């Protein structure tokens, strides 16, 4: 129960002023600029854009500054901002096969067309703190260069697909496919199609997806995933421009795509085939898309004729209802707000229950004597 109450206004104003001062920190230390956050905390910005479900690195950086680095608070700011803007429309689906790759690796094939391109990665680093970074003014050595192959590398799984060793990538969609469902326009309905699950997972919490994906690796609906391919890079965004009647690229966005190769399915009529899991997210979001691919694969048990093992990662209702960190934190954190009246009622109740219990005990004792 909520009732209007007064008296907090001055305290709230003072708290917000204090928060602003605390956000600035020691004024003798130079203030962070939004551009510095955008350029130097790029993976944090990518996460805020992916889970805020709004691709805009400047806004992501601003949100991180405003939230003092609280990522979920920053994601909340992005969601709130997007709600204020008009929607121009839906883009054509991005074509990740034409990605200009900054990184592209496969754990399943050593030699593959286009090669293994490590890109800017933490893999193979020693995870030792680098105290050179603590010293200011150090310029990074320029990156090396090598002649680049102008053809985009083909999707690794298409090589397996050629021999039909793997299932096709989703249902081949005719161009006039009905509009895929949109969580931002209509509430989640279950059972969800794969397109709706994808949208929910793409904007879902990385930590939640990581935990679920790890649970499948530990045996809760194990699906034996190999990273068939992980690629990061820029893709074109094509949009139908109504004013000129043409479909035109209106810019590029950075995305991460992960495709897993998983264990087999087959039937009396179909020979065994590898199956797939898929992950896609804004920015350089490797862990997120890998976890997403494992969870996507686990959620497909029914479609692939597998057993329901009762594992959390297989439970669509459980996964999709809890994957959104803004919904989750909204409900979780609202219990910090005043519930004085609710609690008064609870107090009344417990006093009554205790009085009754006490009276019963006294009566029982009297009866026994």
């Amino acid at each position: 129960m909520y009732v209007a109450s007064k008296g907090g206004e001055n305290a709230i104003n003072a708290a917000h002023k204090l928060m602003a001062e605390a956000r600035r920190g020691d004024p003798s230390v130079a203030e962070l600029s939004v551009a510095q956050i955008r350029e130097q905390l790029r993976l944090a910005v990518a996460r805020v854009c992916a889970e805020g479900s709004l691709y805009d690195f400047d806004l992501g950086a601003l949100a991180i500054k405003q939230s003092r680095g609280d990522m979920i608070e920053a994601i909340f700011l992005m969601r709130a901002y997007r709600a204020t803007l008009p929607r121009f429309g839906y883009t054509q689906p991005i074509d990740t096969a034409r990605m200009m790759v900054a990184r592209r690796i496969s754990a399943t094939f050593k030699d593959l067309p286009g090669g293994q391109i490590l890109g800017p990665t933490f893999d193979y680093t020693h995870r030792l703190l680098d105290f050179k970074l603590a010293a200011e003014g150090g310029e990074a050595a320029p990156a090396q260069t090598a002649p680049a192959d102008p053809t985009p590398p083909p999707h690794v799984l298409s090589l397996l697909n050629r021999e039909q060793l793997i299932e096709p990538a989703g249902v081949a969609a005719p161009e006039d496919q009905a509009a895929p469902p949109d969580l931002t326009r209509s509430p989640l309905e279950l059972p969800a199609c794969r397109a709706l699950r994808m949208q929910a997972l793409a904007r879902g919490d990385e930590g939640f997806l990581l935990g679920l994906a790890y649970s499948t690796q530990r045996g809760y609906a194990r699906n034996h995933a190999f990273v068939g391919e992980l690629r990061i890079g820029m893709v074109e965004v094509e949009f139908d421009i109504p004013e000129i009647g043409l479909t035109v690229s209106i810019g590029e966005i950075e995305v991460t795509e992960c495709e897993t190769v998983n264990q087999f399915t087959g039937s009396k009529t179909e020979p065994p085939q590898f199956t797939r899991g898929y992950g896609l997210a804004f920015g350089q979001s490797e862990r997120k898309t890998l976890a997403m691919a494992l969870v996507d694969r686990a959620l497909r048990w029914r479609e692939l004729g597998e057993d329901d093992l009762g594992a959390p990662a297989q439970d669509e209702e459980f996964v999709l209802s809890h994957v959104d960190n803004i919904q989750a934190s909204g409900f979780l954190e609202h219990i910090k707000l005043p519930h004085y009246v609710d609690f008064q009622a609870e107090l009344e109740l417990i006093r009554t229950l205790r009085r009754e219990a006490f009276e019963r005990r006294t009566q029982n004792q009297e009866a026994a004597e």
Partner: protein
Amino acid sequence: MTATQQPDATATASDSPLWRERAVWFSELAKADGAALNQLWADFGINPEHELLRAPEIGLVMARGRVGGEGEAFNLGEVSATRCSVRLLGKYAGVEGHAYALGRDRRKAKIAALCDALMQTPLSERVAAQILTPLYVKRQAADRSAAEKAAATRVEFFTMTRGED
């Protein structure tokens, strides 16, 4: 369709598109670096008389992906975008120009819409030479640099010979 994406190792002004198709110039303007377009426009020096059909407006497009890269489409998330529409007055009265570009750069959207309009007038060759081609060359150089840095991280496997023979 859009101009090719992949970096051209020898991109120069002579490799640039011929700027005959509206989709090609429309897209080049959309991808332009805002500061670069602003400077090129200032250097171009012609600010045609015009009215705003739609003042620069910031909004969103919902980007879609495909499951497995080629399967069913799904909604990935929104991207900020800006659009603007102008109509020329005076000498080229009635010519309309439009712009859509990712990001929230209002000034860029307005200049892009004016360039789109001028590309439909006898000034098109000048716009192409003084604005579009320099944008193309700059973008190709940036793409090439990024691709060459990525290429340097490509793994070159070699096999160690073991044993006697």
